[in-house]
């Protein structure tokens, strides 16, 4: 390589005009950086939602009265357990708890730790905690956004909840969930079932809803029919319904993604168009000189292809790498708010590191083809004309 005349001339030509090289790489890197950041965030949110859906129970049973969800009796659990095919039943208590300023709230989830936990994501959270100790005391596991809020109000170790009957309940912060789970659990407080009932004012013989799992997917429709036959006033929410709801949210986010993507791509095309229409005189002259010295059109195109490929790959690597650092290390400031919108509590979402190589390949193709074309088309136009004319 070091003794190759071609390589020598290629590097010589690249570094001949350092200003042009730096500006080309800089502009291209910024475009790649924006495109990659958008793609990385999209992939990361997609992966988080996918894992959330995967960890959802197969069915959630709610009681409806006048189109409004109400608490349901605890004894429904026994009736549901009679249905053949149901593999696990988890009673759940949850509800919004509004803090003192009434504008901020957290979602309290009560979990029956003695029962099977239908949510696999929660199962992972509880894996490394001492359940006996946790249930015995008045403890809670809080999401990272909740913790930031409590800390900002000087509740570093515990918090006094005000129950609907005016009683203060002091609950200790047992664990803070990692920021990686903030997309789904940032504003969540997890307590024992009984404690949640006390804080939310749910009667002892009532629960908010029931999560059930059915191992055989072919039986899902059948089980849904049986549940509807058993209780006249229930709403059965299947995993597919949840998936649809998440998809709707994501389609909305996808719209934002598309707008940003189109803006970035349009800017890129405009820059390329400008380059295409303003091939500088020195470049024109140089191509004509090379033609007059015995370079064929093919030789010129090949040389310019290599030259532009080197700067394009360099810009691509800088852009992708800086986008990776921006999204996964600095957590995409500004762009994060565009994607996640305003949050009830201070947004502390950390994007999980997902790098899909097909995404990188897509960015590469979206960038490299117009980039190379914007260089090779004008070069080809000059190369096929008479060198004498181009040198005038």
């Amino acid at each position, binding site marked *: 390589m*070091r*003794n*190759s*005349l*071609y390589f*020598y*001339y290629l590097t*010589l030509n690249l570094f*001949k*005009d350092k200003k042009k090289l730096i500006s080309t790489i800089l502009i291209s890197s910024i475009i790649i950086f924006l495109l990659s950041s958008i793609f990385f965030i999209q992939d990361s949110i997609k992966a988080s939602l996918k894992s959330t859906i995967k960890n959802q129970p197969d069915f959630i049973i709610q009681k409806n009265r006048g189109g409004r969800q109400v608490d349901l009796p605890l004894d429904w659990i026994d009736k549901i357990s009679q249905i053949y095919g149901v593999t696990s039943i988890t009673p759940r208590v949850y509800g919004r708890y509004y803090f003192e300023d009434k504008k901020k709230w957290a979602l309290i989830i009560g979990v029956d730790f003695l029962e099977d936990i239908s949510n696999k994501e929660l199962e992972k959270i509880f894996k490394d905690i001492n359940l006996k100790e946790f249930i015995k005391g008045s403890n809670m596991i809080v999401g990272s956004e909740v913790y930031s809020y409590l800390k900002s109000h000087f509740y570093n170790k515990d918090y006094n909840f005000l129950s609907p009957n005016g009683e203060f309940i002091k609950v200790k912060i047992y664990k803070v969930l990692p920021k990686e789970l903030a997309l789904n659990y940032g504003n969540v407080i997890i307590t024992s079932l009984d404690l949640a009932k006390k804080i939310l004012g749910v009667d002892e013989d009532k629960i908010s809803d029931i999560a059930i799992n059915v191992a055989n997917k072919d039986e899902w429709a059948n089980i849904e029919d049986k549940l509807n036959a058993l209780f006249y006033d229930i709403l059965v929410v299947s995993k597919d319904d949840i998936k649809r709801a998440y998809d709707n949210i994501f389609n909305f986010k996808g719209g934002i993604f598309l707008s940003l993507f189109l803006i970035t791509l349009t800017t890129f095309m405009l820059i390329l168009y400008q380059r295409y229409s303003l091939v500088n005189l020195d470049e024109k*002259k*140089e191509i*004509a*000189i*090379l*033609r*007059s*010295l*015995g*370079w*064929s*059109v*093919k*030789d010129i195109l090949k*040389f310019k292809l290599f030259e532009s490929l080197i700067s394009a790959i360099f810009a691509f690597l800088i852009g992708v790498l800086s986008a990776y650092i921006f999204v996964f290390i600095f957590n995409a400031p500004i762009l994060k708010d565009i994607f996640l919108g305003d949050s009830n509590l201070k947004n502390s979402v950390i994007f999980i590191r997902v790098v899909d190589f097909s995404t990188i390949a897509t960015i590469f193709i979206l960038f490299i083809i117009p980039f190379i074309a914007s260089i090779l088309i004008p070069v080809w136009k000059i190369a096929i004309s*008479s*060198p*004498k*004319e181009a*040198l005038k």
Partner: protein
Amino acid sequence: MIKIKNLYKKFKDFEALKSINLEINDNEVVILKGVSGSGKSTLLSLIAGFDKPTSGVILIDNEPISKLPDLHLSRFRFKNIGFVFQNFNLIKNLTPLDNILAPLIPYEKSLQKAQKKALNALKVANIEHKAKEIVANLSGGEQQRVAIARAIINSPKYLLFDEPTANLDKNNSLLFLDLVKKLKNLNKTIIIATHDPIFDKLEVEFKTIKLEDGRVYE
């Protein structure tokens, strides 16, 4: 040998060359004389294969260069024709050595071999002492010698010069005449398009072809 038969060149409505018939022998020095617009530069461009004639044929060593496809024409030009432009057309922000390497890029793989050839060419053109300076800092005469070195790097049989003394002072013009003598001794066929009377002082045997209004008057 160069044979030109019934050569016509038209630019839109303007007839630049009309029915040119010429024969230039090997190792001959030919001075194409004529006022500006007489067609000498156009003829030189057609011989170099930079442009295609409207009609007629140019045969160089029996190759109809105006009919060769691009790739063959480029290879033929590289092997057989060296061209020196009136304003030299060097890449100004490179050194003479790097400028001279340019014709070899598609053909030569080894950098060392190419540099050796380039230094030899610079020596023949008496400019090897400026090999590593930036071209933009060289004088007109020096730039011309770099352009000549670039034209002869592959030892082509034919050397074409377009108004070689137009941008030179008298001293440098005389130095150029010496260089023509040196190149003729290297068995080159040289065609010079000029209207400069200084070529009357050329100390080698040469043929003058007069061009007027696109026609030849030998």
